[in-house]
């Protein structure tokens, strides 16, 4: 091999490059979350994408906020092409100027996304949802045989010291305050009544990670409270006596969104990747694996999965309370500070 004339070697290399464009350097870099989320994104979107295009996908694992931090650091010379980030962080990323608009020209399947899942501002579409998840009422079916019907049940004396709701360190903590503010019809902009009521709550714990909530329900430390549909049905699948219900006031929900990174080195493939994620097949796959409510029109799932979706067995995206994140982000620091002073101390 080493003795081959230079010209032959060079042309062989050129030929190899021409027939196999998907060398390691050309692999698409996609930021997504860890654990079963990353596994599902790989199986439902990345694998079909690689199969269709021959382009490998390199995952950049991190939570939404870590991904945003990475994107801000590599703003001038990004290495990430596509990024999954949750609602809320998505708006922050757009404000930080690290996203490029997603167009129907580059992503034809965008037209099939639910209108609620297409996030557009003056610069165009900066994000598209790939599935909803909700924070519903979760309870221990052994201790509470009948499904609770209202969020106010958390204040019932018989559940004292066995209730859990998210703390502001969790991504759902501040949005949950907005949700309570809405269902209790508190005066606009005034969270004092919400804090006063939470002060009366007798919690087992305020969970700061989804894992801590799962752990609390699993050990019966909490027998009623808020939990993500993704986490709750994971416990149910393990055979634990847990129920998940959408009470009459509804549930707060958000979504995992896809973003095209500004100046992405492989922009064309990045758009194809987003297009793949918006196919009914990918959406259905995410619903089956993570119980994410499909954000693509006309996706049908098995009745078994349908019961585990964020909006409950009979609902739809209309039953979800989706927040105006700009409003939430503007009040975030203030609410966290009030929570610390009023709630998180003895």
């Amino acid at each position, binding site marked *: 091999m080493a003795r081959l004339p230079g010209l032959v070697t060079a042309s062989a290399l050129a030929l190899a490059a021409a027939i196999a464009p998907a060398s390691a350097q050309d692999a698409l870099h996609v930021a997504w979350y860890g654990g079963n989320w990353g596994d599902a994104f790989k199986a439902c979107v990345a694998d079909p994408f690689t199969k269709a295009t021959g382009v490998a996908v390199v995952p950049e694992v991190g939570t939404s906020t870590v991904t945003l931090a990475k994107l801000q650091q590599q703003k001038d010379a990004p290495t990430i092409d596509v990024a999954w980030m949750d609602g809320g962080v998505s708006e922050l990323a757009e404000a930080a100027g690290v996203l490029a608009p997603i167009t129907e020209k580059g992503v034809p399947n965008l037209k099939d996304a639910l209108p609620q899942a297409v996030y557009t501002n003056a610069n165009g579409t900066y994000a598209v949802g790939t599935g909803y998840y909700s924070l519903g009422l979760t309870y221990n079916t052994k201790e509470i045989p009948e499904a609770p019907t209202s969020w106010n049940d958390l204040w019932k004396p018989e559940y004292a010291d066995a209730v859990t709701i998210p703390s502001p360190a*969790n991504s759902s903590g501040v949005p949950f305050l907005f949700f309570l503010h809405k269902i209790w019809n508190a005066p606009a902009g005034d969270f004092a009544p919400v804090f006063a009521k939470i002060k009366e709550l007798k919690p*087992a714990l*305020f969970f700061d990670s989804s894992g801590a909530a799962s752990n609390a329900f699993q050990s019966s430390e909490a027998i009623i409270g808020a939990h993500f549909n993704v986490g709750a049905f994971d416990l149910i699948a393990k055979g634990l006596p847990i129920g998940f219900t959408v009470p009459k006031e509804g549930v707060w929900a958000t979504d995992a969104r896809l973003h095209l990174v500004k100046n992405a080195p492989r922009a064309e493939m990045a758009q194809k990747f987003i297009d793949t994620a918006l196919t009914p097949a990918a959406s259905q796959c995410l619903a089956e694996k993570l119980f994410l409510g499909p954000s693509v029109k006309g996706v049908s799932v098995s009745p078994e999965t349908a019961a585990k979706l964020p909006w409950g067995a009979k609902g739809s995206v209309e039953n979800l309370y989706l927040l105006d994140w700009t409003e939430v982000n503007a009040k975030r620091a203030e609410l966290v500070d009030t929570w610390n002073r009023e709630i998180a*101390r003895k």
Partner: protein
Amino acid sequence: MAASRTTLALLLFAPLAFFAAFFLAPMAVVALTSLTTDDGGLTFAHYARILFDQYHWDVLWVTFRIALATTALCLLIGFPLAWYLVRIVRWRSWRRACVILIVVPLFTSNIVRSFGWMVLLGRTGLVNQGLMGMGMTERPIRFLGTETGILIGMVYILMPFVVLSVGNALAKIDTALEDASADLGVGPARTFWFVTLPLCLPGAVSGAIMVFALAVSAYVTPALLSGGQITVFSMLIFQQYSSVFDFHYGGALSVTLLVLTLVLVTLAGRIGERGRRAA
């Protein structure tokens, strides 16, 4: 001489470069962000916000109180344990087994061990089942969400540091010194108090400093065992970085905790130094 100096410089370069890149640089970034505003201007406002607010001092007091109690308990329990391992155990393999038992938990993640304590200390956990089974309490005792709960978890996690450092100091003591003390007609209690204890003080102090520094900055254990109902300083820092995204205020909180901890650790180091000189 010159050659050895070059070798030395070359040998030192790698660790120094590593230290600069992965420790000094990030630290400088945090310190710098804590002193700037969003548009890059210099400000002390973030520090003023912390230092002139009683709330932050309250949280600092809780943090240091838990860390001091953790250190005291670790010493109180760790010292006899180290004594047992070094002075009482005669059978070598058993000693080795004990040391392994002490060290192995350090290989497991804090998160897993704290989750373990959440299960043990819970309302229906093993500890409460045991207490109720023995008739020591009618209703389950609340551990989670209390300082006691955090303390139990922290002492369990940090104890090995005291056992290892005190054990090391004890093993180095020349027992002839104790024999000499006995020969001079001093009883075992006074020998321990005036000979053995001062000699292992440096080990105890270095163990205590490690435990204190780790306890002040601990996040996972207090976050999980407090059930979000008690706030320690590291939790305030985490909130700012993870959910409020105010890196300026978060940075200022970090630097405040770092400086106050360094002050306390220096003071403790002085005490250790004095102990060594006295010995």
